[in-house]
């Protein structure tokens, strides 16, 4: 039997609850395609032995990954909307629902699977006005010592609870996948 994958729940930052998402790569401003971010040279050490470790123009990440669509999703009451991400052609959802104080569903990876290395599902929670109240994420990280019994893990059962402080206000949700690495 394949063991259930280990899911880790990470509560959304308080700041994100108040001011929206901390977007690390797709800025929540009016920058258009091709416009550059602030020029920041990586502070990564340059060994001086030939390794290219400086990445001019790249702003270091400032938080965990999310998706811009959470800001505009506005799901209907009772619904779980889908937020577009870079890997939407690599998986399908089934049984996605909001109920009993949680969002749950089965995510099946439909592209090559010999190992599912990384998967992160972000869930946004919304009030009756369609305003984003906060997010939580589920993380699956492959480890070297993971038991590899059985077939590759193509389907992941995802359960993300509504944050305690939001229970009374949440009427809808949205899900998106910013991280997926499989081989």
């Amino acid at each position: 039997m394949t063991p259930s994958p280990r899911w880790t729940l990470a509560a959304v930052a308080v700041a994100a609850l108040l001011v929206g998402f901390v977007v690390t790569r797709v800025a929540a401003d009016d920058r258009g395609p091709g416009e550059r971010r602030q020029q920041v040279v990586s502070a990564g050490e340059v060994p001086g032995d030939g390794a290219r470790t400086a990445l001019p123009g790249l702003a270091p990440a400032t938080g965990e990954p999310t998706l811009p669509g959470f800001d505009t999703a506005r799901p209907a009451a009772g619904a779980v909307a889908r937020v577009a991400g870079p890997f939407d052609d690599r998986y399908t959802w089934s049984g996605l629902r909001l109920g009993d104080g949680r969002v749950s569903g089965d995510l099946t990876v439909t592209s090559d699977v010999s190992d599912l290395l990384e998967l992160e599902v972000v869930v946004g929670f919304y009030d009756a006005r369609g305003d984003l109240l906060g997010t939580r994420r589920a993380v699956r990280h492959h480890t070297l010592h993971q038991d590899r019994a059985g077939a590759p893990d193509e389907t992941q059962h995802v359960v993300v609870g509504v944050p305690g402080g939001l229970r009374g206000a949440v009427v809808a949700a949205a899900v998106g996948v910013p991280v997926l690495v499989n081989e």
Partner: protein
Amino acid sequence: MSVSKSKRSAGVAVVLLAGISGSALAAASTTAEAASGHDNSGRIKNVIYLLGDGMGRTHVTAARERYYGANGHLVMETLPSTGQVSTYAVNKKSGQPGESDFSPNLVTDSASAATAWSSGVKTYNAALGVDAKGNTVPTLMELAKNDGFRTGNVSTAEITDATPAGQMSHALARGCQGPTYSAAACQDPAVTGAPLPTSDVRVTPIADQIARNGTADVILGGGLARFDADDEAALRDQGYTVLGSPATQTVATKSDLAAARGSKVFGLFNKGNLTVEKFKREHPDAAQAQEPTLPTMTSKAIELLSAKARGGKGFYLQVEGALIDKRSHANDAAQTLEETKAFDDAVKVALDFAKKDGHTLVIVTADHECAGFNIIEKGTYTNAEAAVPPANVDAGNPANSSTPSRPTSGAKDPARSSGIVNGSGSADPKNFGPATFRTPDDAAGVQDGSPEASLWLTYLSGNHTGADVPIFSYGAGSEQLQGSVDNTDLFDVVGAALGVTG
């Protein structure tokens, strides 16, 4: 933190076993001379390094028999120098071989293997461009680029995947591919002791690194979904001709590739891995049929790199046939064979160039074997969980008798066996039936999949194995790759050929 690799002798000793015949010795010497190629006077300007991901010796033999018959040869088998490569990895925090804290891991992944030949160090599975203690180590492609060589990286996988990334990035974890940073995917406190700042290259998404470090002049493959508008802008700022568009997620096509010009070209032809040749052949009108083949990408990369040589310097090109591994994981023999053939066609492109050029070293090898691919006797079958253990009893010579290492039978050993790993349908024992293929030697009318077909293929598992992999080479210096070598030795041989590891 960084570490400079201690300089090893560029020469790889070829040990002739006691008992080798004089004629065999003479043959080896002749082979070494032939390996020098014609008219190159031992001066190598270019290196083309081709690897079939997951391609073990049986993959080569099976593809040969499938496409050319029992008496035929793949192109790679015609290269004059041949040998085998050990591929083991090490565990996290391990020292290098010979050091007191050396801790080997006998089965490598693609990341550890790529780091071995790219940087000359053993590292842990999942590591790219770092040693087993997390220290950044330079790659051959970086050293070649820094020394004025033109550089290229071609793959049928996502270009952020382990093998191509092993030349163009430094990452604690191969899953840190992008487009966005994630602590779970990018950090490894088990190696570094504590999370690294996100400004550290070792936790920077591989796509961000590739788009900004300029390590490879020509980048062709899959994985467009890993790149975004900022990456495209960074590439264009460095002078790359970008085929398709990461910003709009528009994949490039083989027509775009054919028309591509310039000293720096970036072209990704699928949002994920490229499409298997079998599908493109059977569906010529599908969108995926607009993807170039591996030999086409190889030919274009050589054209672009050889046209822009600077200051007398040549080029260093890595070419990966990635889907051999991916389809072996899936235990799909038909696709595995066809991908091996496509890879061999890319070898022909490289070899034809080398023969004409006279100053090119061509190396063909693999990173590891995948799935325990086997050719079994027609009419027989295999089962990884043997139904009956060997009796190990020899009545004629009891000295041969012993207690079987596995005394039970008929079911998996819960203490030692992970069970059937065979992708979709693994619960159905019928899926362990051998896949059968006709060969050119079979009578007309014999069909693939029939019991009459002569090539019977099976897989042992759905994952990598620790078997040594074959190596074939051509050109001055290739004689160093005869016999048994380690994957880290390839760093020395290629580095010496290019003169970048002095």
